């Protein structure tokens, strides 16, 4: 398997996640926007930890910072942290049943939002709590669906390990 054929679908997934991260939503839905980039990176870091890890997460985070206009490095730090956790424990995560895996995703997303919250707090940027909890809840609820779609992509396209 050539590297190009295995990277392209994942790259499309990541770009799609970035698009979904900045696509305009109606005002009431804004606080509940799932962390698409985080979900995508959790899945692919768990499944292909040698190809996608902290480096990818960091780059995606920087792009997300620029696209969302947040402090440069904020999403990069948060995403590289959860990518690190995922890669570190990917062997355990792979054998978890889906309910347990969902609980882990909940924890990872909460950690991700806590990093964002913490950096915002240090920088003096305040936002209502729902803006931190909303994405955690919706992201966790969407996780089974997202992992199903990604596994479909993963087993349909050729990939090397």
């Amino acid at each position: 398997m050539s590297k190009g054929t295995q990277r392209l679908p994942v790259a499309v997934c990541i770009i799609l996640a970035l698009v979904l991260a900045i696509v305009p939503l109606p005002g009431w839905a804004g606080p509940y926007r799932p962390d698409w980039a985080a979900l995508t990176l959790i899945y692919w870091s768990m499944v292909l930890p040698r190809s996608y890890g902290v480096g990818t997460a960091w780059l995606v985070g920087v792009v997300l910072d620029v696209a969302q206009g947040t402090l440069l490095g904020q999403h990069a730090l948060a995403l590289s942290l959860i990518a690190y956790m995922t890669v570190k424990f990917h062997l355990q995560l792979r054998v978890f049943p889906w309910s347990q895996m969902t609980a882990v995703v909940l924890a990872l997303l909460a950690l991700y939002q806590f990093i964002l919250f913490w950096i915002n707090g240090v920088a003096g940027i305040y936002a209502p709590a729902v803006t931190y909890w909303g994405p955690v809840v919706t992201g966790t609820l969407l996780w089974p669906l997202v992992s199903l779609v990604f596994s479909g992509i993963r087993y349909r396209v050729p990939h090397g390990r």
Partner: protein
Amino acid sequence: MVAARTDNAHRSARTPALGLRFLLLAAMSILLLIADHRENHLDTVRKALGAAVYPLRIVVDSPVSLWRWLQETTAARNELLLENSRLNAERLLTQARLQRFAALESENARLRAMLEATSRVRDQVQVSEIMSVSSNPFRHTLVIDKGTEDGVYDGQAMIDANGVVGQVIEAGLLSAQGVLISDPDHALPVEINRNGLRTIAVGTGEFDRLDLPFLPNNADIRKDDLLVTSGLGGSFPPGYPVGVVTDVTRIPQGPFAQISARPAAALNQVREIMLIWPGEEPPPAEIDSE
């Protein structure tokens, strides 16, 4: 199982590298955060990265902007269709009205011109329509639809929007006969508006020419001088335009110059004339054009 074993084999070697990489990236993140938050040093970096992210924004915006464009286009089309049907209906209505308005408009313009003359002269006037004109080519007379019942009297002045037309010579009960200033038997006391020089304008039998036969060769009169009524004859109130001098021929061997003028009123084209009651004296009947 093969996969798991491969990963296990690599784990011991990779884990420190992973932690190191993460620490490096985290440190870089924190440096970026500090630089961005404290100093705003990264504006250029942010701008460059923003340019790199721009295609992403286009991708994001394309469905939205397409939808908006479609909405605007269809909305504009609907509006145009509505406007078009509304304008069509309006056009039909307007055309129907216009058939009547064309006649009314010209009549209105004529009446308005007369009213303007009225307001200028401040004499009591009454509009009257011409019923018939003389068939005798050497007599310029006409019959109007107002008579003594309306206060018309012999010798009353008749004008139109542009100037003096003539005077009443025979007032009947319901109609009156008038003579035009171009009648060969008619003479009209006038003065030159420019210098007040008084003379008599005599009809010639031609609708477009008056003669001023009683001015000496050295009289101060020129082409394009305006002739107005002098009011001295008694029947015409002063100040109404009569005509414009068109030709001044000095005859050295004769006592008088030969001077002609063009009447201000369109004598052979008038349809309505105005009867004048000089001064503020109202006519016996009510002023009513119909």
